[in-house]
């Protein structure tokens, strides 16, 4: 089954990528008083990324579900076909 070949990048992924790029591009001023420690900063970057991912997931949850249903080959049930089968 072809999942990702020959498909256009979905709007979902494009928006997520743009959001990430925007977040990385804008720098905040550094404060001299306290050294935040690189380990902590990297962790916060990860948590920000996960949080961003959660926001995107929540927004597009419905579309995400539909996407996976298509992939797994589940066709929506058509009542007309069921009736025909019973006859």
């Amino acid at each position, binding site marked *: 089954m072809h999942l990702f070949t020959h498909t256009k990048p979905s709007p979902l992924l494009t928006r997520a990528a743009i959001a990430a790029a925007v977040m990385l*591009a*804008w720098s905040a001023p550094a404060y001299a008083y306290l050294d*935040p420690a690189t*380990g902590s900063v*990297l962790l*916060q970057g990860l*948590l920000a990324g996960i*949080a961003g991912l959660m926001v995107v997931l929540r927004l597009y949850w419905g579309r995400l579900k539909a996407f996976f249903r298509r992939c797994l080959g589940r066709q929506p049930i058509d009542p007309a076909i069921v009736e025909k089968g019973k006859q």
Partner: protein
Amino acid sequence: MMAGEHVYRTVMPFAATDYESTRRTGILGDLVNMGLVIDERPVDRDVLGAAGENASYVVEHPKLPFISYPYEWCFHALKDAALLHLDVHLRCLERGVTLSDASAYNIQFRGATPVFIDTLSFRPYRHGEIWTGHRQFCDQFLNPLLLRALLGIPHNAWYRGNMEGIPVEHLARLLPLSARLSWNVTKHVVLQAWFEKLSTHAKPGAKPGGAVKDIQLPPAAFRAMLTGLKEWIATLEPKDGEKTVWRDYAEINSYSSDEARKKAEFVREFAAAARPSLLWDLGCNTGEYSKAALEGGALLSIGFDFDAGALERAYLRAKAEKLNLLPLHLDAMNPSPSQGWAQQERKGMRERAPADAILALAFVHHLAVAKNVPLDYVVGWLVGLARTGVIEFVQKDDPMVSELLRLRADIFAGYNEQNFERSLAAVARIRKVEQVSATGRKLYWFERD
């Protein structure tokens, strides 16, 4: 800086803009009214004379009667301090204000209630900035709590030795695998330590990645971090709720309740006469006699004990019964020393003396018998801590002392009532003596100039 009974702080020109904009939001006034932050009052620069010359502003704070440090606090006190810090920070963020650090030394206690004292760490929040205090919060609040909650080890000795707290990298090495199953532990300890290690393994000469400096934390994620920590820390308790030897003493001790009543009555009478503003209760156990002293007329009692379980009970009792009592961890054989830059930043126990009065009940034999300190040294030290107080002498054949000698040779020929009285009379006047137990325990009320 201290000037008499006042505490003043200067706001220098480079910090003036932040000072002004945060005060304009009104957050400080609100936090003070809620009792979360210490009162701050702007005063005239002239108050400080030459010292205030270059300041943009000078502010005044009420002076607290006793200063204590995170390495002296019990588990629940540190927990309450951590929750207060997070609460203050969350409320600040609502008004576009943030805290520039997360030091545990920014919190002091009034009785058993924590209060945030560093009003100059408020500054405007810049959208997208990371939580710069996160590592410090972990080192100074979270990790010491986890040391006790996950491993059952009290934080006091380690924290006192490493004044800036328990480093993430070291705690990460100690954690059992079962602890790592928690996403909270994984985030704040394991991952943070791992990222720190990764970043220090960079090739020598390589500049710290520009991308790290540009990392953003969206406001919602910032709030989520603080809220998540708050909810998690609220659930932390000492591992196994351990019973330590002396904690149950208050319930199963070799006193009958008649004797406990006599002791309490003696202490109340003493407190009513002495009316100490500051009482030190050495060997406070669960705070029973501090409570009696407070009822009698003492204003504030600082309890000292080395038994972790007893301290937790004393602190929780002080909170529940609204007693003006702060129990602190102290091993009298090794009291807190002066520490920090030039050994002046954090005062030792001696530097915070004298008290107005002391209690030393069921205490002397711990030093004179269990720890081999000569009896007259112990008495001299106690009497040196305050002009007046109550000291209990427990005979060698009393069950509590014979317990200490169970596995040892009795080398304490000099440990007896006559020698005790002699030592005490040499350095103070004995105002009243009363026998409180059938085994011959006696309370001595002393006074000196």
